[in-house]
């Protein structure tokens, strides 16, 4: 792939993101759907498509999608309807999917994304509600395809972007932004690996300067943020190469193969379904009143952008730190909780950024899975602030706290890490050090003040790390400069 080609072409990318909602029950049936349960146990006659059953709208679904619409600056339709999308597939029990077609509930919104060096506003065409299908399992039985309908009927929202994205990196940033928003709103857990967040991409390329869009392909089966970026990158190159070599891009749906790191054809335009959308007669229109809208607006949590600014203003942290700490809503919640308990924002920030994030990265876990509660962490911070422990002891105790439920103070005591601030004991210690190191004393007195570190180090060594370094410094100063 030559760089020249890349300079001559630009990509046009639009994303369709499906987010599985965290409602307690399915979209249209009063039954829970929990990831990982035994196949076909989370079902009702409705989920199985039994004759005579009727869908019933889950009210949370409507509230959740309105939240999402408000958070992404969308217009909310006062009246919108459900539609049926008709096609045959074994994991689609009714032979149609309940979705929205002509009148999505949210429309014409935007999100702002930040990339290195620039910010960009990405338009949202629409956000609509639909139900999920079941799962076809092709690799567990050599002769048959198995169908698990636990997921059938779970509520999804589909977020469709305008074709405003130009690079795989922008697509990645946009997707991360969507994930952040759904997490902040607590409408979806944002987990791509478990499939609660899914993404399809429409990709086309055109010569720079040309307004007319090129022929697009639709990419499916990208099950991580990185895969989305990689697949789009691959597809852009594939299309450019095709055009450069005199070929033509054909409208088709392509699957991303993350092992081979390439896309391959799934179906052509000719094979595309005619979904025969029509208004869902079993469900009345969704009416959103102004009161309902205001009520939901008032329940909206503080979103990341606003929170970042507040953190900079309230806690005096740098913008970079504010971005890092608000990236994940739950990390920001955790941090604020630690601040509440400890009363010390700066110390809290330091511990969360250095120690907590280190552990999350090392163990590849989320903050929700992190074992130390904000309250316990704040106790540790207080020990340090009250000079009961020193920095190195703090780290040792923190590591111990990961497996040990004991209070930080008890752990410090049992590990013999409480600082000694007893002036009698320290005085004796300092006197010994002065007596045993005449050379260093001589040089210190002659002006080599850096040797203070040596004396403090000796004191720490002799006290097995327990000496209060501040007091040691004061004593050495007093004794040698007097």
């Amino acid at each position, binding site marked *: 792939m030559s760089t020249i080609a890349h300079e001559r072409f630009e990509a046009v990318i639009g994303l369709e993101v499906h987010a599985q909602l965290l409602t307690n029950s399915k979209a249209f049936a009063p039954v829970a759907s929990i990831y990982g349960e035994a196949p076909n146990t989370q079902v009702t*006659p409705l989920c*199985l*498509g*039994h*004759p*005579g*059953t*009727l*869908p*019933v*709208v889950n009210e949370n679904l409507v509230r959740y999608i309105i939240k999402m619409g408000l958070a992404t600056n969308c217009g909310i339709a006062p009246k919108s309807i459900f539609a*049926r999308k*008709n096609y*045959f597939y*074994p994991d689609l*029990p*009714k*032979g*149609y999917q309940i979705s929205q077609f002509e009148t999505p509930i949210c429309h014409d919104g935007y999100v702002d994304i930040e990339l290195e060096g620039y910010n960009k506003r990405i338009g949202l065409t629409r956000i609509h509600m639909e139900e999920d299908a079941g799962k076809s399992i092709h690799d567990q039985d050599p002769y048959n395809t198995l*169908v698990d309908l636990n997921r059938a009927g779970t509520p999804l929202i589909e977020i469709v972007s305008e074709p405003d994205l130009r690079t795989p990196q922008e697509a990645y940033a946009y997707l991360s932004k969507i994930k952040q928003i759904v997490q902040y709103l607590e409408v979806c857990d944002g987990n791509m690996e478990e499939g609660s967040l899914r993404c399809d991409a429409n990709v086309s390329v055109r010569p720079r300067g040309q307004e007319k869009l090129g022929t697009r392909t639709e990419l499916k089966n990208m099950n991580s943020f990185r895969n989305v970026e990689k697949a789009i990158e691959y597809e852009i190159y594939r299309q450019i190469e095709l055009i450069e070599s005199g070929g033509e891009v054909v409208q088709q749906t392509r699957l991303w193969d993350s092992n081979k790191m390439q896309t391959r054809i799934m179906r052509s335009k000719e094979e595309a379904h*005619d979904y*025969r*959308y*029509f208004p869902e*007669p*079993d*469900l*009345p229109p969704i009416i959103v009143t102004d009161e309902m809208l205001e009520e939901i607006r008032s329940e909206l949590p503080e979103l990341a952008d606003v929170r970042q600014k507040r953190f900079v203003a309230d806690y005096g942290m740098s913008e970079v730190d504010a971005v890092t700490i608000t990236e994940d809503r739950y990390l920001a919640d955790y941090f604020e909780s630690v601040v509440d308990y400890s009363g010390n924002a700066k110390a809290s920030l330091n511990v969360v950024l250095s120690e907590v994030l280190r552990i999350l990265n090392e163990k590849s876990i989320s903050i929700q899975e992190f074992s130390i509660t904000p309250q316990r962490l704040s106790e540790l911070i207080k020990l340090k602030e009250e000079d009961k422990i020193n920095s190195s002891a703090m780290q040792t105790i923190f590591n111990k706290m990961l497996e040990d439920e004991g209070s930080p103070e008890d752990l410090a005591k049992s590990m013999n890490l409480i600082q000694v601030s007893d002036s009698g004991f320290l005085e004796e210690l300092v006197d010994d050090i002065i007596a045993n190191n005449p050379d260093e004393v001589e040089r210190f007195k002659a002006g080599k003040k850096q040797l203070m570190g040596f004396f403090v180090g000796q004191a720490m060594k002799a006290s097995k790390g327990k000496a209060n370094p501040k007091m040691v410094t004061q004593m050495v100063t007093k004794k040698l400069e007097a």
Partner: protein
Amino acid sequence: MTTLSIAEVRAKVLSGELKLRDVVEASRQKIDAQNVEINAFVYTDFELALKQADEVQEKIMSGTAGKMAGAVMGIKDVICEREKPTTCASDILAGFESVYDATVIERLKAEDAVIVGRLNMDEFAMGSTTEYSRYGASKNPRNTRKVTGGSSGGSAAAIAADMVNASLGSDTGGSIRQPASYCGVVGLKPTYGRVSRYGLVAYASSFDSIGPFAHNVEDAARVLEVIAGFDEMDNTSSREPVGNYVETVQNPTKNIRIGVPEEFFGEGLDPEIKEGIEATLKKLEDDGAELVPIHLPHTKYGIATYYILATAEASSNLARFDGIRYGHRTDKDAMLDELKAEEEDLKKAIKAADGAEKKELQAELERMDSALVRLYKKSRTEGFGMEVKRRIMLGTYVLSAGYYDAYYGKAQRVRRLIKQDYTDAFKEVDVIVTPTAPTTAFDIGSEIDDPLQMYLNDVYTISANLAGICGVSVPAGTHSNGMPYGIQFMGDTFQESKILNAARLVEMLD
């Protein structure tokens, strides 16, 4: 005994004159004797019915019985009953048993109705004669050479043959009222949303209503009172309060305003039926009713509109019958063998051919069904009957890309105009009167090969379904050909009391 009204049965049980079990036994004897010929019931369970009868008997004696105590009922095979065969008279559901009770069944049981069995119908309620049934046609008890009407023919015939004193049917374009007219019984289609559709196997979801058949207006009112009302399992069911229908028919008002639409008394209507209905109206007028000429100008598009919208919904509603999870599935191995043989034949032909022909054959090979697609096609081809296939194809066609606006879109707009016609008319009148059907019941087999002629049987009933309003058919007389015919009263949405009142006035003329 099965000609007694629900209230009469209950009174006689209470007075000791009758045992409820005897009424159920009488029902069994009637069915044993006549069902071979009439073919109204497709399934009965008298062991259970007799057990229920004994329980209800005790409740009647102890004064704790529900509103339906005394009712011995049959249910159209399109309404789900737990652990009972629910086949919609279709091969594709042969052997299928529902895993749950429809809301109407729950409500009837809770009010102590005794259900003895399930009733014949046109497959998936598509038809006007009950001839399109896997169980064969039902026959009209008044003359067994004649059709019962349909699609709820079994439900009407079971009443006309005195097999039970009440039954449930469903009405999508006239499927309750038209067979009620042909069989000489009372049949009521409630307002759309008045009765929960949960457990009614869907034909056309925005048209379907469940309603009662009975010997008399009061029993129909009683059944309606029990099955009507909001149901959280059906988002299209209404929270509008349910009326005191029984009380209404017990004290009917005579000075009502009756709209007479010119459009429903013109060409195509049997002159004798026309005369008979006009005579009935004259008597009502003499008794204090006011007759008001009205117009429903858009109703003439009713049949065309209906067959676009209803079939569109049907094509989607019937997609679930795919042979994957339940119901009929084609012999898989035979299907796979057949597919393989076809593939081999094609390959051989390709080898032998050359030029354009070879190319064409290769394209054909490319287009060959996958095993899954073939499984769908064969299962559905084998499982569905002729009329159902016709409507699925029609509905699929009108929803197809490029045709949607011309058919579905336009039909929806006409539907709104028809609804508006009725809304305007009901500003002036309490009820609208029409014949229920243009003719009396005709000979079995005489229209089965002429679907368009068949569709015209619903010409007077179909617009009520398009408008979502209620309608009732009550016997109005007997034709010189010996067959009964009905008079229809239509009422505005949730005005079931008004149409029952009018129907009761006609009943009182006898």
